[in-house]
């Protein structure tokens, strides 16, 4: 097992190096110049421009800059944002909990609804429930979520007035930021109604973000269940007279869950991409929106380290999925 983990980790090293190259170089290929953007309509003299460029270290050889970048990374220094002048890492960490919270609630929603639907659809294969839910899943899978979000805002916030338009919690509540997760902080604060308010503000964004993963999970669960139920041991169990409910619970469900868990793990990329759109629509203060803003402001360090951190998170989650898979299935481990 240890060797398996080690080999996986070693395999990641070159990939991660590649990621640093992309994360470093892509933002630097962006047309435009942060110094000019800061100066705006006022203009900046060539001397001042050169001086500022030098101060930011952008006059050096680009290869040297790359090694500087990697060298600082090794010391845990992700650079300072050109716009806010603050450490990129602290900016990222300040916003990341908001994205995680939204993402976790969304994936929870997707799993808790998607898995039962998939199981039920598989059991009642061909029934009206199967047909309707799978059509619904396909609609969800095909949904342009940025439009879906707008529709929900118009209907639930605008027309019915049930849900707030944007934000993370009612401004009436104020408590210190302990974990950055509003649901947890609101509980810690002990203020009455704070948790409910945080939940209330989370509903629409998480529904929107959960739409596609929900559809994927429901479909995947159904097909995994169908496959497992066709396997010999399930048939045998059934033939032996085991009650159908027990067959499903003991054999089918457990085995079908392996690919489903993988699917859920693989949704992280989908979630992060979806977060960019969801956060934009709901003015949700997370890293998706931060990345878009940083790109348009040509905030090189923010974009570079942002890309790196996001890719790092994706990689770690994929690794965890891989390892779980290896744990469950020894054949992969020993290959």
């Amino acid at each position, binding site marked *: 097992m240890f060797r398996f983990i080690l080999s996986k980790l070693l395999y990641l090293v070159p990939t991660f190096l590649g990621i640093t190259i992309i994360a470093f170089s892509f933002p630097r290929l962006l*047309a*435009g*110049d942060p110094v*000019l*953007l*800061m*100066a*705006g*309509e*006022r*203009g*900046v*003299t*060539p001397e*001042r421009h050169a001086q500022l460029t030098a*101060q*930011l270290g952008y006059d050096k050889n680009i290869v040297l800059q790359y090694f500087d970048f990697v060298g600082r990374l090794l010391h845990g220094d992700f650079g*300072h944002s*050109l*716009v*806010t*002048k*603050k450490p990129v890492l602290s*900016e990222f960490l*300040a*916003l990341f909990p*908001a994205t995680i919270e939204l993402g976790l609630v969304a994936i929870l929603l997707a799993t808790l609804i998607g898995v039962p639907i998939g199981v039920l659809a598989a059991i009642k294969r061909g029934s009206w429930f199967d047909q309707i839910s799978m059509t619904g899943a396909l609609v969800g899978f095909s949904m342009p979520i940025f439009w879906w979000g707008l529709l929900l805002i118009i209907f*639930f*916030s605008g027309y019915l*007035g*049930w*849900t*707030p*338009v*944007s*934000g*993370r919690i*009612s*401004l*009436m*509540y*104020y408590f*210190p*930021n302990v974990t950055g997760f509003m649901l947890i902080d609101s509980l810690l604060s002990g*203020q*009455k*109604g*704070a948790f*409910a*308010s945080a*939940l*209330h503000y989370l*509903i629409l964004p998480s529904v929107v973000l959960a739409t596609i993963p929900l559809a994927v999970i429901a479909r995947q669960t159904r097909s995994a269940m169908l496959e497992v139920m066709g396997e010999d041991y399930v048939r045998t169990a059934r033939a032996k007279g085991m009650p159908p409910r027990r067959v499903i619970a003991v054999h089918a469900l457990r085995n079908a869950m392996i690919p489903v868990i993988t699917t859920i793990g693989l949704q992280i990329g989908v979630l992060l991409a979806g977060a960019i759109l969801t956060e*934009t629509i*709901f*003015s949700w*203060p997370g890293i998706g*929106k*931060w990345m878009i803003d940083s790109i348009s402001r*040509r905030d090189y360090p923010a974009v570079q380290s942002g890309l790196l951190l996001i890719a790092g998170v994706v990689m770690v989650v994929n690794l965890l999925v891989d390892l779980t898979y290896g744990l469950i299935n020894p054949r992969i481990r020993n290959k």
Partner: protein
Amino acid sequence: MKLLSRSLIAASALALYAAAPAMAKTFIYCSEASPEGFDPSPYTAGGTFDASAHPIYNRLTEFKKGTTEIEPGLAESWEVSEDGTEYTFRLRQGVKWHSNEKFTPTRDFNADDVVFSFERQANADHPWNQYIAGVTYEYFNSMDMPNLVKSVEKIDDYTVKITLTQSEAPFLANIAMPFASIISKEYADTLEAAGTKEDLNNLPIGTGPFRFVAYQKDAVIRYAKNADYWGPAPLIDDLVFAITPDAAVRLQKLKAGECHLMPYPAPADIEAIKADGNLKLDEQAGLNVGYLAYNTTVAPFDDVRVRKALNMAINKQAIVDAVFQGHAEPAKNPIPPTMWSYNDAIQDDPYDPEASKALLEEAGVSGLSMEIWAMPVQRPYMPNARRTAELMQEDLSKVGVKAEIVSYEWGEYLSKSMETGRKGAVILGWTGDNGDPDNFLSVLLSCASAVEGGANRAFWCNEEFSNLLQQAKTNPDPAERTRLYEEAQVLFKEQAPWFTIAHSTQYVPMRANVSGFVMSPLGDFTFETVDIAE
């Protein structure tokens, strides 16, 4: 779903009562942008100043609310030497600094703070100059303070003398700008001792009407009323900025009562806001100008007749109607009408295609083809440059001029438009910093800035015009300055380096029960005078 939401609403409504027992007045402002930081000096964005300089800090001089005139701030009075180079400021006594968990002031505001606040920006070797890596003092530099200020000296605890290298009339307006906010030296010392210098930018301490409480990045900023404020005390107890970048979402929140006031509504929503009984709308001509700058050093645009002819070919009113949807005033001068010394006697070039054709013929120009540069972004002075360019293109074609519309990425647009050999006329604009005409005319049209990298995109260098500006700048007498600027505007119109487009109107929608908000011609949002009726 339905049931769930209802019960949640009931829960939060209950909580709302529970949370506000003392009926503290909380004013919520749906701001547009996140502040870059809370130290005003390193930054340039208006949204940052609204969150830092205006609520938290004060300056030696201040802009009188709703005007661009100067009034005493932390300096109660001042004397200017005969030659206009020495300013002696008498400081206000008994001004209390804010306090927070890490800092309790032991003394009032005094001359040390003033010296500190200027020194750290002026002197690159000052221990607080680079208190954050890579910090620059852009406004201090672009207002030419490094060359202008010779020294800042403490005479006694409540007297400071600032010596300039030359007489400079706009100086008092310059130091009323956000970058010149006064920082507590004692707080800086405390932070330095604790080894947490960057907290100057994160946990600000000032003398202003509101005390900083907390900032949650990209989401909420909280302030509380400064009970010891030296000026008139604020009427609200708590001030909250709910950061909402999207104009449509801001309006939705305003309508839903989730905030009391918002900046920058979408032009398309103005009529609907006016019609909404729960809202009201303040409006004011903005301190800005949008223009089309010819390159006056390149033929045939070096010929004033050609420039005049093109100016007469373009239908300005059509642009104001179609692009600004009427929410702007057609511009005839390079400075806006709300600014002192605006010369209203000037006649704009008429829209007259026939005269334009004749003038082009007289200049010996036929079959002219040119570029019109349209910037890729929306700015306060120009909602849609592309559409403006399209309208110009059509008008110009009617006088036989073929125009091609060109655009670049914004950063590139800014730099390419500053290249001296540039072909083509550039759409751009300006928003005033300090309400002084010099801040428009010198920056945008003087010989000094008609260089590579300068903001004079017309590269128009007229000695007579520049001399007038120089005289006005060094003359402390407002009446005399006004006369000189009026004269400069006549010269500008004669020489037509620009096609002046429009001064866009600024709108501020708010809940109907909000009172006391004063629009600032400088575009600032300040809340010490606002109140909410129950």
